[in-house]
């Protein structure tokens, strides 16, 4: 268990629980009452802390090292039928952007998302979930494949941003993302986009144009990370908490601003505390949404998708 700085009270109880369990197992004293008490206390403390998270704390939860990543969702939701499909058919296979077919309760879906990497070695292999242009182009190729065979598309968003590298620029990172925004608006199949961790800027939006855009409870979605915002607007790295608040980047904020369509609840204490529950929550929501979307004609769905994004942005006509 890794605990975040604001989870100190949970950590202390957890350590007590650990000791109690050890004593109990040695068989000298019956600790079962203490253990049950502590477990209750942990759950209550979690509930209390997690119902009052600040925006910055939510950013921390969204990056929790034990939080389930995209591939874990794909495998769990499809009962391991997920068949990854590789490559953009032009340059290479981007390991930060994964996609493929999977069967959810007997129905075929195209699942696409950024994969962050589960340990130090894999994080490098996955480029920390920062896709290159070929990642966005692979994503689009797979979306078109899904469209051809009339399969609904689910994108799972979890990225600190598109990769800002030299080769990414050479191969047109801007063009790749822009193309996806335009093309996704025209897909004839239902598209559901879910932020499961970090939704950073154009790198997230590049697979984010959907009929339904949803966020998990403790995730963030904005134009810039709080750290970078702090460094640019405050000219210092020390204002990330203020920046997180100012950016109104939480799921709740985003729903209030009508920039997303809904929020998916997380287990008490965050998705990492009960991964299986998280997978089930997301799966249920996907099935619910797709059932609704499939009742609408393709033309109407596209029209509504365009209308939704076209009406975003607040201005005054003086």
């Amino acid at each position, binding site marked *: 268990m890794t605990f975040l700085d604001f989870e100190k009270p949970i950590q202390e109880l957890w350590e007590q629980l650990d000791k109690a369990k050890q004593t109990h197992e040695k068989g000298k004293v019956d600790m079962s009452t203490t253990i049950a008490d502590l477990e209750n206390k942990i759950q209550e403390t979690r509930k209390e802390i997690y119902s009052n998270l600040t925006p910055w704390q939510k950013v921390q939860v969204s990056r929790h090292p034990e939080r389930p990543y995209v591939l874990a969702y794909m495998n769990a939701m499809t009962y391991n039928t997920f068949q990854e499909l590789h490559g953009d058919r032009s340059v290479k296979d981007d390991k930060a952007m994964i996609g493929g077919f999977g069967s959810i309760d007997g129905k075929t879906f195209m699942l696409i998302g950024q994969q962050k990497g589960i340990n130090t070695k894999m994080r490098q292999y996955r480029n920390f979930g920062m896709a290159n242009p070929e990642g966005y182009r692979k994503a689009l190729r797979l979306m078109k494949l899904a469209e051809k065979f009339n399969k609904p598309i689910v994108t799972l968003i979890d990225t600190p941003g*598109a990769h800002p590298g030299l080769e990414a620029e050479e191969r047109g990172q801007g063009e790749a993302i822009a*193309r996806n925004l335009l093309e996704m608006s025209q897909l004839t199949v239902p598209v559901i986009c879910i932020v499961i961790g970090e939704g950073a800027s*154009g790198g997230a939006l590049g697979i984010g144009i959907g009929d339904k855009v949803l966020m998990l409870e403790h995730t963030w979605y904005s134009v810039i990370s709080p750290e970078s915002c702090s460094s*640019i607007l405050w000219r210092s790295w020390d*204002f990330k908490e203020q920046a997180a608040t100012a950016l109104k980047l939480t799921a709740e904020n985003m729903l209030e601003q009508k920039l997303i369509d809904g929020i998916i609840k997380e287990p008490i204490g965050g998705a990492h505390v009960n991964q299986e529950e998280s997978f089930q929550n997301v799966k249920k929501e996907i099935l619910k949404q797709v059932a609704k979307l499939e009742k609408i004609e393709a033309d109407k769905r596209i029209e509504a998708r365009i209308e939704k994004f076209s009406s*975003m942005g607040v201005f005054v006509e003086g």
Partner: protein
Amino acid sequence: MSEKVSWFKRIRGGITTSTREKKEAPEGLWYKCPSCKHIVDTNDNAIHLWVCQKCNHHQRIGSAEYFGILFDEGKFKEVNANLVSADPLNFSDTQKYTERLAASEKKTGLKDAISTATGKIEGVETMVACMDFTFIGGSMGAVVGEKISRAIDCCIKKKTPLIIISKSGGARMMEAAHSLMQMAKTSVKLAQLSKAKIPYISLITDPTTGGVTASFAMLGDLNIAEPGALIGFAGPRVVRETIGKDLPKDFQTSEFLLEHGFLDFIVERKNLKSRLAQTLKFFAA
């Protein structure tokens, strides 16, 4: 010389018929080229369309200048001029966003970072949306997105071609996710324009980075640029930090993008109007 004078008159015409007050340079002021340090009279500089005659550096200019250069006799009609940001997040960093907006308006005489206008380019009725870098770094907020969106609606309705002149540091951070979603908004609207088979020419000028590059600037039927412009997704400083070494000399210039296949052609400002007019005629004839 006579040709230049007529150019100059045209530009002056454009400036003076603009709805906003534009300060005329008094006689005898000098302009120093930031690239080669060559010094010229400001009026001569304007006659040459703000391009250095020594090193061909294309100086950054704004919507008033581009409208003056492009539209016949400098005549055009600005549309949706009164849209202003609503500060949806009540955003404040070291300064309130509303204060930044007010200061920028005072400094530039502009209401936001883009102006949209219709007029004729060698007789072809065209919608031109032009960004102004002087207004909060040409950043894209809701006003930029809405003006482009409305320009596209107008182009579809009237079957008028669209030119967008990009010049932007990217997203307007003070509008946070609203700003991010303008990338989506402009791109989905361009999909509609594309479906209606109305030509869209994206003219990319110095500098264009971030969310504008990753949306409408790269989505033209033709993507063209002025020479030597900085064009990229990530800014050069960020890329340098990522790779931990110096960048190639021409990295992220118009010429670099042309070489890598992301531009159709590069056009010098002195040929801009005629090349655009010819291109519009290719689509129409």
